[in-house]
């Protein structure tokens, strides 16, 4: 069952990721990226990370990507114009990339040969309680710094938007 779900959602994630790169229209790319995020959320669930899976859907798919789609719609971004590249790049790029991917897979499998097995239900420490406890004890300082970061981001976004209004 684990193998089935992993294969299914890994396949979906890969297809959608390739689609993000290959689609010409930004909206198609954005929706494919939502597909990647959704399938990654399911994989997180398989890995026992309930809270992160839900946060993934809420933050990434529900807020960040909606923002992207909003901007694409606002700017009415059209299909990306195709620019001629050198024929060597076209000819060699794709095979080289596939070779790189193959090498990478081999590398990971070679250097992490005896990793454990992932079985649904093995690890149950990913609930809201555990995350909250760790967040407010061990990781308190990063957490507080994060809030400053968000404040900076808010102010930055407002300043940029203001400039646009003038």
């Amino acid at each position: 069952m684990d193998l089935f779900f992993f294969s299914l959602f890994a396949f979906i994630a890969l297809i959608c990721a390739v689609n993000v790169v290959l689609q010409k229209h930004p909206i198609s790319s954005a929706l494919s990226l939502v597909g990647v995020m959704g399938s990654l959320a399911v994989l997180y669930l398989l890995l026992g990370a309930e809270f992160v899976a839900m946060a993934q859907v809420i933050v990434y798919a529900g807020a960040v990507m909606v923002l992207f789609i909003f901007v694409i719609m606002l700017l009415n971004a059209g299909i990306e114009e195709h620019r001629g590249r050198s024929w060597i790049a076209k000819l060699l790029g794709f095979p080289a990339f596939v070779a790189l991917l193959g090498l990478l897979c081999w590398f990971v499998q070679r250097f992490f040969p005896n990793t454990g097995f992932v079985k649904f239900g093995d690890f149950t420490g990913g609930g809201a309680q555990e995350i909250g406890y760790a967040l407010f004890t061990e990781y308190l300082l990063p957490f507080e710094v994060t809030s400053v970061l968000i404040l900076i981001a808010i102010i930055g976004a407002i300043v940029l938007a203001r400039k646009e209004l003038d």
Partner: protein
Amino acid sequence: MEFLVITLIKLALITFIFMTTLAYLQWVERKVIAHVQVRMGPSRVGPHGLLQPLADVIKLITKEGVLPPHVNAGYYLLAPFLAVFMALISISIIPFGTGIDIPAMTFGGKTFGPYHTMMELASVNMGVLMILAVSSMGVYGIALAGWSSNNKYALLGGLRSSAQMISYELPMSLAIASPLLMAGTLQLRGIADSQAGFYLGFVPKWAIFQMPAPQIFAFIIFMISAFAETNRIPFDLPEAENELVAGFHVEYSSMTFASFFMAEYANMVTVCSVGTLLFLGGWQPLWPAALGSNFVAPAIFLGAGLICLYHGLNPARPFDRYTLPVFAVVFFGLAGLMAFPPLVPVLTPLFWFLAKVGFLLFVFIWIRATLPRFRYDQLMSFAWKFLFPAALLNLLVTGFLVALVS
């Protein structure tokens, strides 16, 4: 195996009842608005227009689904599907009553049971977060519909809806977070169970009354955001008829058009159920059973039956003579069912839950009949300058009080 069979039965039941409810919500909405505005409402199809939803469904199915030539066909067809899917998925994790005990039965020598099952499809640890996640995905249907229609009004509707949904999700999440602090769990059933009991013997321990921090403001903020999240008046900017023709669904027809309405009503039911579970104590009664709260349901149905009977005997319209006594018999039957002792522990919680959800739905319809629409800049400044700080302050005070008590 047993689990699978029971779940399939529950699935079929819930789907059937939920779909019927969605269809009849339209009828209820039209009737209530009509009576608020001193009109009759639907009254031609069937007695009191009760067959109107059926007629509407048949009309919508048999109409030709037009695919305009200028749309982006793939996304145009995907959008309503996405909207409905996201709206329906969240109903599967909402608990709507306590457990049911099915006694052992013998069929042809084989004994089945006894079974014990909860009144919900799935019990999710992260129930509240999952509802938030699914509802935040619902915006894709609308935004995509607006974009793929290739129409300026639709595009404006889609833009407005995505900005509005993101903005109102924040106060909504913050308002949801404060009762969670008191319940100490993210499971919807656990939250409802944590609100059982009474203060002084008669004040219910619902989150809106619960000590140390009554969540009445959180409830109001939640309801206001819920109106915006479901695109209902006074926040129905994405589909404002007199500004944007019909907003994001202007190019849709037939069943694709109906899907958006179905999604809207499904979202309304979901959001009302979540409000009931988080703030109004789920299926906990308004006052203790010792003071007779178990007799409310039979009494209400009995009263409704008597009123129907009276008006049937003194008919205002000719056909009332035949229809209203039938309704009276139905209501008497329901009253009998509610008062039947073995069914009381099952049906009374269900009644309270449905009554609260029904009341919140009525508030939705009531406000639609009463309030005008916001202007867009007012909508945004209301969310960011009032609702969001208010929700934040409420969360802060709640957290402080909870920490102080524990």
